[in-house]
């Protein structure tokens, strides 16, 4: 049962602020129509993660957290957005927009989810000994929100973005509840995410050439009835 050394004034407030940003971004993603905007938001999300990880690393004084922060920066802020932008340009999907139905309702659902997530995380976070205890609820909220986003989206790319946002939420949960998973696992996860995105890239092109569109309503042929 280790306590943290070198308490750093204001760290937790900063972290809470960052967490709030994260939540804000998720809501923004929930309501954005333009695909490219979503990518940008995703990048911002990564940025916030990077900063928070740095903070946690600095306050907890764990070396490997710096690595994981660097990894975050590399993967979530630089590489993935670049790949996505590249794909969007190659697929000529810059101007793709979602036809979202009834944003207020979705927002309301999102709100309910957030409350639900807090309620869920409350008993758990009181057990947490990390300085970031209260952020678990937010992490969970981010996950659920991006889940909601995936449900509401109709385009392949946006769905993937939602998927990546969910990954971010997970990552945030990992850093906030426990000071990150062991390095090896982190690497594994990162690798998986990277490979996943590559495969998705391949998919986009295949889907594109088969259906000459990335709209998911083409992918509704396999059904019962």
């Amino acid at each position, binding site marked *: 049962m280790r306590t943290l050394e070198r308490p750093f004034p204001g760290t937790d407030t900063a972290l809470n602020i960052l967490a709030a940003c994260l939540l804000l971004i998720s809501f923004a993603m929930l309501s954005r129509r333009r695909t490219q905007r979503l990518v940008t938001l995703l990048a911002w999300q990564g940025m916030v993660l990077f900063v928070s990880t740095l903070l946690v690393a600095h306050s907890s004084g764990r070396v490997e957290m710096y690595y994981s922060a660097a990894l975050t920066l590399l993967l979530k802020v630089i590489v993935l957005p670049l790949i996505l932008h590249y794909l969007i340009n190659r697929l000529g999907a810059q101007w793709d927009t979602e036809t979202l139905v009834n944003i207020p309702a979705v927002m309301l659902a999102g709100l309910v989810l957030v409350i639900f997530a807090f309620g869920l995380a409350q008993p758990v976070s009181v057990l947490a000994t990390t300085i970031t205890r209260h952020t678990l609820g937010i992490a969970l909220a981010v996950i659920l929100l991006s889940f909601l986003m*995936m449900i509401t989206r109709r385009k392949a790319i946006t769905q993937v973005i939602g998927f990546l946002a969910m990954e971010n939420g997970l990552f945030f949960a990992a850093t906030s509840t426990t000071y990150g998973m062991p390095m090896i696992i982190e690497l594994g996860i990162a690798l998986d995410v990277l490979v996943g995105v590559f495969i998705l890239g391949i998919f986009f092109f295949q889907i594109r050439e088969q259906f000459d569109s990335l709209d998911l309503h083409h992918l509704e042929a396999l059904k019962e009835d």
Partner: protein
Amino acid sequence: MVIEVLLVLTLPVAGAAVLAVLGARRRAATVNTAFSFATLLAAAALVVRVIRHGPVITGHEQFFVDSFNVFLVALTAFVGFTTALFSRPYMRIEQHHGRVSRRRLRLYHSMYQLFMGAMLMALLTNNIGLLWVAMEAATLSTVLLVSLYRTRASLEAAWKYFILCGVGIAQALFGTILLYFAAGKQLGNQGTTALLWTHLDAVKNHLEPRVLGLAFVFLLVGYGTKVGLAPLHNWLPDAHAEGPTPVSAVLSGLLLNVALYAVIRFKVLVAGAIGAALPSHILMAFGLFSALLAAFFLWRQRDIKRLFAYSSIEHMGIITFAFGIGGAVANFAALLHMTVHSLTKSSIFFSAGHASQKAGTQQMDDIRGLMTVSPTIGWGLLLGSLAILGLPPFGVFASEFLILTTAMRLHPWATPVLLLTLGIAFAAIFRRAQPMVFGETNAKRLPHSPALLPVFIHLGLVLLLGLYIPPALAHWFRAAARLIG
């Protein structure tokens, strides 16, 4: 690091690399088979070692072999080998029919090996984080296999498979994090100790119940998606129907097992922390619901591979139900059922694949009179279906016998559901299988002779398990049943 474990883990990966380099030469299929066979040998050696010296923990505790995963490792390696054996002529015929190009075969072979490696890793690792990584890897490697034909349907199936399982696996990761978090308070967050199943198992009674409850939900939803529990099952029939038959065989026969294995591993921990009641009831409910739903889906199928995909859902449901019941007998039965189901189901997919190759379609209404045109395929399909329907003296009957009798004793309320499920499933599958096997036909000859040796090896084993279970296997089953509690 114990050499056998090392071999079992590395051989498939090496195979993947070699095959990726080797490309689509004519010998690729043979090399694939060879590597699978080597893996099988390594697994056999591992089994022998376990029989001799008991459980193994190795590689800085990152890997372990106990009575729960040893037979699954053996089973996976074995079915992997037989499937490779089967896929050799099968894929050649597919190529001959022009459904796959030679470049795709390269992808196919190396991904196949990678998939095997991932599953073995998932089975052997002691580290729940690695377990997650391996499962994800398994998903990724099979996604490309499912979409191998590049048809619209296969792409759609692969996409759904990817998204659903990806999202699911993400939930599982969150569950893993929560577990790690809970364990940190006992085992400390330094290093990977808090992720090692053996250690978790040691302290499971002291883990924080509330967190474990949450974690279990996320893990169940996550890995349950891959098990194909309704209503998380929707990816399964599509992926099975649209991928190449060998892939369907390994998906049904192995991947579902591995996912279920993960679920049960976590169930053990959670039951230790919050008591067995809650997880048991959740599992039973999931199992019954999946089985019943699958039965009704079976009733309406026209596509042969979809049919047997749904039957996999049904059987996974039954197994989950049995694990939910718990206790020595039910767990024993569930483990036995895992084994015989994967053997039977893969053999069915083998013969179903050749049957649909013959008829040139997967529509069952157009497949007729296999018994007359090629008796081996006909008998394979018929016996396989009868076996999977739980007719003795096949092994499926043995496990179902134990499950049903135990359920009848402990949870009589489940009886009507089970009766309905099994009755409808029987009628649904048999009314389709019979006309395919019997009657007149218009099928044409195949360009290459089908490889049905695996079919009859599998069926032979299933028959054996119905009448006689080797002591070692029985011992593992019993020990694992005790472990699962």
